[in-house]
């Protein structure tokens, strides 16, 4: 629709175009990214972001537009690069945990779990059953937390403003739980190698019960506002489609993959933290469009509630931290009597525990997809290499596949539906 006056291809015009785009690339590189029509000025090159209300942070997209139709959509990432992976290499295994909170900052417990799981696998630590069950409860709450922010921002992107605030209201209940167990509302660092930082306080059970009581009703509200709303369907059905093969080829995981019909969930495929003790379904879609992603996540709310109910009912008593004193700090009162405990305490808080030489990969199903941690130990108390397989990064990759041929307004829906967190993308 909107076109610029076609200009003949000449060096000066091209230089202006490259300058216009303000990418740190040469003209030759730009030519490979956009269609030839962009170089003659037939299509328009436009920046979306990094400062844009609906790129969910500092994602920057270079758009090639034919009117409002997207010809090419090139993501440019790195604006939130914090060097978390590199920083983690300089920290002991315990001290690296707070860093993981900050990758996907909307699902801190999932990240904690992935990192601690990797450490436990590397060192070979057994986690008590109570801790495993509590982890499951917290992980499912985290999934809900992540999905709530997704739903809110996604709806806000499509103009449904109230849903955003309703989601924030519900998220508050979950943040209260975080606060009760860890003292922090977002950067919890509650899950530790070998179990949990400490047992949950009594108020935890009331708070979780409140979520279980209130949430199903609220879920019905959302369904009324969105799922059955023809305007919502108009904006989501058939938008941003991707086939199952493509999704697998691009490494998509989580609800984005499941929406294409692939029944892959780390919780079922490679159960961790006794997920195999619980009975739950993996919701899948068929079309792989924005609406199916939405439906999958909405159904996951129900499944999460189901898992939490089971875990609460069958929560065994017992310790929440491994008794292995090489990894877990001794109880404070023991330090006063036992020389051994004092030494362990000192060693743990100064040097940290040592991990053997070796390389492990441990993945969890976070709200966004497969969140994996690759950990390479070199026999010292610090890892040689840490790498996070961030679901946001992998889910963002095929955005050009999904957006091509769609309208600018649809791009907003697509970005919202893949549920990215830039902290997770850039790490």
């Amino acid at each position, binding site marked *: *629709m*909107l*076109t*610029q*006056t076609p200009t003949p291809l000449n060096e000066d015009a091209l230089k202006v175009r490259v300058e216009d785009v303000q990418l740190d690339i040469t003209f030759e590189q730009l030519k490979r990214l956009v269609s030839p029509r962009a170089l003659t000025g037939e299509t328009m090159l436009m920046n979306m972001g990094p400062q844009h209300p609906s790129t969910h942070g500092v994602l920057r997209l270079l758009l090639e537009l034919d009117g409002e139709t997207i010809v090419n959509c090139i993501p440019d990432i790195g604006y939130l690069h914090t060097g978390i992976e590199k920083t983690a290499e300089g920290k002991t295994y315990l001290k690296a945990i707070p860093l993981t909170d900050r990758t996907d900052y909307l699902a801190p417990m999932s990240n904690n779990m992935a990192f601690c799981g990797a450490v436990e696998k590397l060192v070979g630590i057994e986690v008590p059953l109570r801790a495993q069950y509590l982890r499951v409860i917290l992980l499912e709450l985290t999934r809900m937390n992540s999905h709530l922010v997704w739903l809110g921002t996604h709806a806000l992107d499509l103009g449904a403003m109230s849903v955003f605030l309703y989601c924030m209201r519900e998220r508050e209940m979950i943040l209260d739980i975080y606060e009760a167990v860890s003292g922090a509302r977002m950067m919890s660092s509650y899950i530790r190698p070998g179990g949990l930082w400490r047992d949950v306080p009594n108020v935890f059970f009331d708070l979780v019960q409140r979520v279980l009581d209130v949430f199903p009703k609220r879920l019905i509200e959302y369904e009324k506002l969105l799922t059955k709303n023809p305007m919502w369907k108009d904006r989501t059905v058939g938008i941003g489609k991707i086939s199952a093969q493509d999704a697998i080829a691009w490494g998509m995981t989580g609800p984005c993959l499941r929406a294409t019909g692939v029944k892959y969930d780390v919780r079922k495929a490679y159960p961790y933290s006794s997920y195999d003790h619980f009975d739950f379904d993996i919701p899948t879609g068929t079309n792989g469009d924005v609406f199916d992603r939405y439906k999958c996540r909405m159904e996951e709310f129900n499944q999460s509630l189901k898992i939490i109910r089971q875990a609460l009912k069958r929560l065994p008593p017992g310790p929440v931290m491994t008794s292995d004193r090489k990894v877990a700090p001794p109880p404070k009162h023991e330090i006063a009597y036992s020389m051994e405990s004092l030494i362990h305490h000192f060693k743990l808080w100064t040097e940290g525990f040592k991990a053997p030489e070796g390389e492990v990969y441990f993945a969890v199903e976070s709200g966004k997809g497969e969140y994996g941690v690759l950990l390479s130990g070199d026999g010292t108390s610090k890892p040689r290499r840490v790498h996070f397989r961030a679901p946001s990064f992998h889910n963002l990759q095929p955005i050009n596949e999904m957006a091509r041929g769609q309208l600018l307004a649809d791009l907003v829906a697509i970005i919202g539906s893949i549920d990215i967190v830039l902290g997770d993308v850039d790490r």
Partner: protein
Amino acid sequence: MTDWIVLGLLGVLSVASALGLLLSRNAIYAALFLVLNFVIGAVIYLVLNAPFLAVVQISVYAGAIMVLFIFVIMLLGAERLTPAENPPGLNYQRPLALILGVLALGLAAYVLLTRQASAAPVAQSVDASPTAVGLQLFRNYVFPFEVVALLLLAAMVGAVVLTRKTE
């Protein structure tokens, strides 16, 4: 007397806006001067006691047609064409426009000079309410009215056919 002053003032403004239209190098400005011209035309109708015509002038010309003009100018990004960029083959237009303009001016001057001068604008006595205009249109002038309607329809169909994508 006041009518003459007001009309004279409006006439000057109208000519000024028309000149602005002609002399603007920027297509958007030209279009805006045209809108101004239409609005002044509407005010002249109002002064002549023809509110129906005035309002129609505003809503059809200023409100719909000129919006489309501006839309198209914005869409094509063609607001700053220099004379050099004008399509070739249109060079004959300038002298032609000059000749036709002089002819039109001469005609107006001829009518003004030869016409019997009347004391005041005649419009005062004419009923120009919507009802009166409607009755005139659908009784005395129904045939021309329908012909114009058919013409517009044909033009519309033509436009649709011309802009349809060929498969």
